[in-house]
């Protein structure tokens, strides 16, 4: 990555082009508005906040105004926010006041931070009208996305006079190189199960189990592994045959527990991917829908075990819909998958981060193609967890 020369470049390197438009939404208020305004800026990461602060400072300087900061580095700063704001001397050249702190959910003292902000904002809530009178310029409150719900709850009067809430959501994955590129959402990223390193051998082993009552589940698992192995070797027809046989075998079992239903759905899920690869999209769609339905039922019985698979099957179904140009439907299905996965992602971020990132990226691509606006809160929830993971990993 090249060294950024401007604030804009620095911002784009971290957050991407889409996020830059978000940030411009806040900036535009300083061009159009006048007098007091309460602007809320939500973004993951203190580094990004610093870049935004610097950019706003430069923007105001170009108009002969200055940006002042009421820093909140410590919890006590947040708790005492009202008195610190009211003690702040407003001068004629003041173009804006920047306050707040971006404390991620992963912070070991996050509960204490939340308490401090709750206290500070509740106190500020009581002095909403004097606050409006005190500042004749915009007040920017910056924080991690969790601040939105807390602000709404602890400071409802302040929240009710918000001028704008701007969520800067980083673009997930590498930025697209050009506008209007024809996006291919790859269903293969949502394949379920392990892959055999020698799929032919595994298929041979599976052959020994055919026709042996009571061995159907084992047979199906071997077929699944073989199919995944064939997929990795780009032998899609062979893979398709394996998955189809696995699905048909398990369909005859009339399963009473969730486990075989899960394998059945996995076979259908992977079969749908292969059919899509082979261009048989209508059949692929039908199989993917069936997989989603079965996983949904299984997840109701055992959510911890099957919600990830349900989310994965949403990934496949969404991808197939996307491949048919049905982007709005695809986006809705991806979003469903993300919602299902979110609680587990928070519990086990390392386990589900790849799946979550894939779903989010597919979702982002689908909404863009559909010309829709992404659900930034939904993406923000995932991005926060991923951001924390990235921060936790030492850079190589």
């Amino acid at each position, binding site marked *: 990555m090249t060294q950024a020369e401007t604030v804009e470049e620095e911002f784009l390197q971290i957050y991407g082009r889409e996020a830059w*438009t978000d940030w*411009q*939404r806040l*900036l*535009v*208020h300083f*061009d*159009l*508005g*006048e*007098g007091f305004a309460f602007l809320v800026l939500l973004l993951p990461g203190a580094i990004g906040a610093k870049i935004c602060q610097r950019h706003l400072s430069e923007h105001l300087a170009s108009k002969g105004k200055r940006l002042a900061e009421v820093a909140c580095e410590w919890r006590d700063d947040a708790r005492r926010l009202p008195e610190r704001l009211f003690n702040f001397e407003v001068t004629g050249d003041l173009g804006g006041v920047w306050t707040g702190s971006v404390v991620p959910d992963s912070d070991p003292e996050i509960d204490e931070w939340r308490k401090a902000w*709750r*206290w500070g904002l*509740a*106190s500020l*809530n*009581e*002095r909403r*009208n004097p606050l409006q009178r005190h500042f004749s310029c915009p007040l920017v409150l910056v924080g991690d996305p969790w601040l*939105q*719900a807390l602000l*709404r*709850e*602890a400071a*409802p*009067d302040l*929240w*009710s*006079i*918000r*001028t*704008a*809430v701007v*969520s800067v959501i980083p673009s997930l994955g590498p930025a697209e190189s050009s506008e209007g590129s024809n996006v291919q959402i790859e269903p293969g990223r949502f394949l379920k199960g392990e892959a055999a390193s020698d799929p032919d051998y595994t298929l041979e082993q599976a052959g020994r189990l055919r026709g042996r009552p009571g061995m159907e589940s084992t047979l199906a698992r071997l077929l699944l592994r073989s199919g995944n192995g064939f997929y990795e070797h780009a032998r899609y027809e062979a893979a398709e045959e394996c998955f189809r046989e696995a699905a048909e075998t398990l369909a005859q079992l009339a399963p009473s527990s969730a486990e075989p239903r899960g394998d059945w759905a996995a076979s259908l899920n992977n079969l749908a991917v292969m059919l899509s690869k082979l261009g048989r999209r209508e059949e692929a769609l039908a199989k993917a829908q069936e997989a989603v339905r079965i996983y*949904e039922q299984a*997840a*109701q019985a055992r*959510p*911890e075990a099957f*919600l990830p698979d349900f989310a994965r099957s949403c990934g496949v179904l969404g991808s197939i819909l996307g491949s048919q140009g049905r982007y709005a439907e695809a986006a809705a299905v991806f979003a469903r998958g993300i*919602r*299902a996965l979110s*609680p*587990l992602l928070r519990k086990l971020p390392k386990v589900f981060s790849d799946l979550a990132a894939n779903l989010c990226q597919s979702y982002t691509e689908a909404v863009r193609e559909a*010309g*829709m*606006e992404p*659900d*930034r*809160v*939904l993406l923000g*929830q995932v991005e926060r967890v991923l951001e924390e993971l990235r921060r936790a990993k030492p850079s190589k």
Partner: protein
Amino acid sequence: MRMALNPEQERLLKRVYQSLADRPLEPGDPFYEPIYQRPEAEDPVAMLKTRISRTDVESLHLFSGFRGTGKTTELLRLGAKLEQQGYLVLYANALEYLSGSEEVDIVTMLMAVAGAFGEQVEKKTGTAVSEEGFWRRIGNYLSKTTLEVSELSPKLEIGSPARDILGELKAGLDLKVALKTAPSFRQKLHDFMANRLGDLKREVNAFIEEGVKAARHAKGQPDLQVVFLFDQFEQIRGSRSNEQAVIRSVERQFARYMDTLRLPLVHVIYTVPPWLQFVLPGAFSIEILPCVRLWENDRQRSRYPGGWRSFQDAILKRFTEEGFRQIFGTSPGAGQQMADKLIAQSGGHFRDLLRLFREAIALVGPWRPTLPITPAVLERAVANIRNEFRPIADDDARWLAEIGRRRDTALPDSSPESVGRLSSFLDAHLVLYLANGEGWYDIHPLIREEVEALAKLPLPAKSRKQ
């Protein structure tokens, strides 16, 4: 191909953006749209005015409305109308005298009301109610009373309310500030005065009567009618840790002390939290300011043209006709159709209406710098504002879906917990209060689809509820 805005268009956007700023409007403001005064609308202000004019000497009224519905604007309109009829109208902000986040008690409240009344009489007429003013007068009363108690009980221990209050008053305590900011002092005061409430009320009544006489004298009108608007009292609510206690305390004031809160020779209007009607149903009459009704209370939510016209006119006033044409296009009907997309999403909530249009204007420059505005900008504006309503917890979604279905609060009980949760829905505009003849509730159009979808979801993990 993208076009850039010319300087004239930039100036237009700036002007419209500023005109869409949300602020209480003074009577006579050119942006004021009489949305509650149309023949087809409900006008709680007219109702209050009638009630006041029908009671000759004194009266007590409760007025309420949900955040952002224009309560203060309408209260100011009421004040202006009454002043036109010759009333002396005094206005005070309760939050300048009471803590907004702690329990309220009758002692503190009476003192706050009397103190505010005295200050407003002086401000409006230029005449002090008494030489010493209310705060010094009540301070003297407390000093005298606590001293008597101390003398009568020489063994009164340090830490007793009387001894402590006396000590603090002698040390020059600012009573007005202490009432608002010192919970421990309030507690001691309440403990000490609890069985002397009659005495305190007599002191307050005497002061108020003197105030009315002073105002009449200053204005040279012996029959002058005085109206006192005690606004923002409804904003007293706790934080999560004490919300239920605060709700109980406010409820207590009006359930037990309604008569105590009447003021002699004064028409007093308290703005109260709308949830009072949930915890004390039928206990008293509250005039509640509804959202503007854009749809009927029927299954398909069929369009109610009267409300639409109000909002269309209100927007036109802020844009001006020429500005509206430039921003939404000159094609007959098409521009209004586009603006209507935003009106539909406002839910009849005035603050949300302004916010939606403002967001659209803000997006033009950085996102689609061309006029007339494009449908994509409007869609994105709606999406951005919708994001401010999120996240919606699954449990909340189920309750909200029920409200949308039943068109009432679907309140399971009147416990502080349930009332607090419902209030937070109303505060955040997730739920809207509407009226045609009688009041009803519905969920905000911005969240309808999401609420329906969330409510149908299986319960994946109970931990989703924060």
